[in-house]
């Protein structure tokens, strides 16, 4: 057994666990933060996306013991009914979900994605010579959110919600197919 101090949503807990336990299982089973979902347990769906020090990662591909002392944020830490995060509100307004199972991961991923974009991180559809400020076009959002599957197909609503929060409306860029390189 190993002991780890998990700092989640501003609260610190000391947890005894088998070192093989994933961060996802630790959050769900030990801390009872069940908003973060297990959809595949192999990094193929994104339902377990959480933020670590503001960066989006997959909790199923992380050992809990690797994340002692780091600042972890789950969907429960972003906002609560009555005090929702702007992205949570936008997901409702633009219907960025149906069954809701992938939603926690989508929203955490979107928070991380907006931070990446603000920091100038390019994507595969960003022009090669792009200066740091690439507009967050629909194509950019779709590429940058491709790590989060939604089998209900609420993809357009997710794009709309993110665009709304990002304060852009760059529909013109969407007629282009994804970059061919």
């Amino acid at each position, binding site marked *: 057994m190993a002991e780890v101090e998990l700092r989640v949503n501003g609260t610190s807990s000391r947890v005894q666990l*088998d070192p093989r336990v994933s961060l996802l*299982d630790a959050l769900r*089973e030990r801390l009872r933060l*069940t908003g973060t979902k297990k959809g595949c347990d192999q990094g193929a769906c994104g339902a377990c996306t959480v933020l670590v020090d503001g960066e989006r990662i997959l909790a199923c591909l992380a050992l809990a013991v690797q994340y002692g002392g780091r600042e972890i944020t789950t969907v429960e830490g972003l906002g609560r*009914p009555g005090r929702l995060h702007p992205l949570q509100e936008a997901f409702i307004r633009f219907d960025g979900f149906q*069954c809701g199972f992938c939603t926690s991961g989508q929203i955490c991923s979107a928070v991380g994605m907006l931070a990446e974009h603000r920091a100038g991180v390019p994507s595969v559809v960003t022009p090669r010579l792009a200066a740091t400020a690439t507009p967050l076009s629909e194509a950019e959002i779709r590429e940058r959110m491709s790590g989060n*599957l939604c089998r209900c197909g609420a993809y357009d609503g997710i794009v709309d919600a993110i665009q709304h929060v990002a304060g852009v409306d760059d529909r013109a860029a969407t007629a282009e197919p994804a970059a061919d390189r």
Partner: protein
Amino acid sequence: MTRAPERSRPAPPTPSPAQAVGRPLDRVDGPAKTAGLARYTADHHVPDLAHAALVHATVARGRITGLDTADAEAVGGVLAVLTHHNAPRMTPPAPVSALDLSTLAPGTTVDYLNTDRVHWNGQPVAVVVADSPDTARQAARLVRVTYEVEPAVTDFAAAQDDAVPLRGTLLVLGEERTGDAERALATAPVVVDHRYTTPAQSHHAMEPHATVAVWNGDRLTVHEGSQDVDWARRHLARRFGVPLAGVRVLSPHVGGGFGGKAPVWAGTVLTVLAARATGRAVRMVLSREDVIRTVGGRTPTVQRVALGAQRDGTLTALLHTGVSQVGRVGGTPEPVGSQSRHLYAAPHIWIRHSTTTLDVLPTAHMRAPGEAVGTFALESAVDELAVALGMDPVELRMRNEPDRDPLDGKRFSRRDLRAAYARGAERFGWAERTPSPRSMRDGHWLVGRGVATAFHLPVRLPADVTVRLRADGTVLVRCAFHEIGVGAATAQTQVAADALGVPVEAVTVEHGDTELPVGPQAGGSGQTASVATALLEACEELKRSVLALARRSPSSPLRGRRLSELRAGRGGLYRADAPDRGETYGVILTRAGRAEIEVRTAAGTRLGRTLQQARAAAGWFRDRRRWVRAVTGAHFCEVRVDEHTGEVRVSRWLGVFDVGRVVNPKTATSQLRGGIVMGIGAALSEETLVDPRTGRTVNPGLAEYHVPVQADLPRIEVDYLDEPDPTTPLGLLGVGEVGITGVAAAVANAVHHATGVRVRDLPVTLDRLL
């Protein structure tokens, strides 16, 4: 259940609020779902919880000859290893009966862990129960099983010759014909006659199946992501020999279903069994591999469509036959010719469905069973005919649009496919398409545009609801329907608000719990309309009861009035001829000394349920004799195909649908888009790969079964005719499944237009285009 219980004070009569039905309201469960607070099955922690994991057979057919569980039992924390040697006996599943639809509940007929027989590669042969999921899973890998292997039929392609035509029953479409299609085909001036295939596909709802089972004596509580809690409850009561009244199934939130969570599968039964055997509450969350090994998916199909036409495009013959697969231990036939019975005005039609039986996991219904894959073949063939005739594919379809059902002349309850195509063609800019293949390009991208028709027959099912009106003006609707993502609670909130004339904020809906009145299955695109029908009936009854209270009061302005003279609105009842004369529900109830008043539709008792089912069945048959009640649509699609690599990008989409009245355009649009997304997946990448030698699925996960991701999709435009169906209450039909139908054909037709390559075998993969 779907909203916080706090209620504001009843508002005084104010100007009538806008009608709720037809408005794009936000989902009532939005705050809970976006904040991660909606509880799905695997999120339930109950006291004293143990965890279970499955061991799967590794042969397709045979008998278990040896089970070595010692290593598994030796793992610290393991509570039990259940096999057919030590598992408690259960009552086998009931034979299927049309008189009791819940006999359709089990996904297979196998009496899990009560038999040494193996019927498919992946059948559960042992269950490990342990104090943690990780321990259970680890120990499950240590169970060693030996088999006496028997010959098995596991190759669908090779089993075509053994296919047997289906005979029509109450539950299954059989052979249907009018005229002599083969002869008409032989003499038609223009003929296309091709074979189309579609692969096995899997639902892959984002939420893997999970069950939590808690026994308390003979009382059983089950948390289960289910599309049919009533089926689950009845099936479990039978299997475990306990009174139905003691079995409760809870399913308030379901993480997607698409048909995969309608039947009761092995995981559910075995979780309950494990809890029975160990005396512990047990939770089993299936891994995605477990899901694919134990939950049936969509059958592969082989289809033939032959069309004969005059040179002007008038169809003379339509022949559509198909073979789907079932398991030897269950499975549902896929009526691939369903839409072909109703779509085109051919005088000679022949439809036949056959099934071939394999030693594999039984198939299950997946979104639009029949039409989802049947439209691929039919609508591809119609496109091929258009090419052969040198005719525009929209024009060809309009030329053959029937006024009455082509098979037997019944009326369509409503049908305006012409309007859907006209609006779609206008919005999409169809006229700009140049007809020849490979005639449109953008650099090295070959551009193609295709169309296809969407078609689905929504079902109607009985539903039972209660509606409670409180003196504070709030309303509680209770019905055990299912929220699998369609916005069901939101839609019923809107229906109830309008029926009673209260604001949507005053309505709360409880669902997904067998303690509630029995609801319909979330299937067949029928849930919303079925519940709404019962709900409207209950609201009428409720208003009558309220009026009965008011009529007795000398001081009521409603005294002596009949309900037909009144309008519900502003939180009460008002005279139609004098809209300021009336009073709120609160005033009426308070004066009568009633805190609340509740009505329930008829099926509260067993007799009531039987009567209701009989009435519903009679109504269904009467309707089926009178008219074809279908939803239709027109898909317009643009693809870009890399000339050199064959990569396909769907670059534009528009679907125009004729689905009757739309309760909530926001959620309905999402559902239709979702169907289109799933159809694009089926068109381009989705395929459950089964090793034909062993019957084992080789891609049981999301890393190698490719559902569409954001980057695969364009914006999907959805439009409606939004005209009520004249034969249903509120004019509702159903939107859940029609979206996926026709999609794969629209893509394949566009790919043909782009490249000149006709792909008749899904999915349209890279190598098929070179």
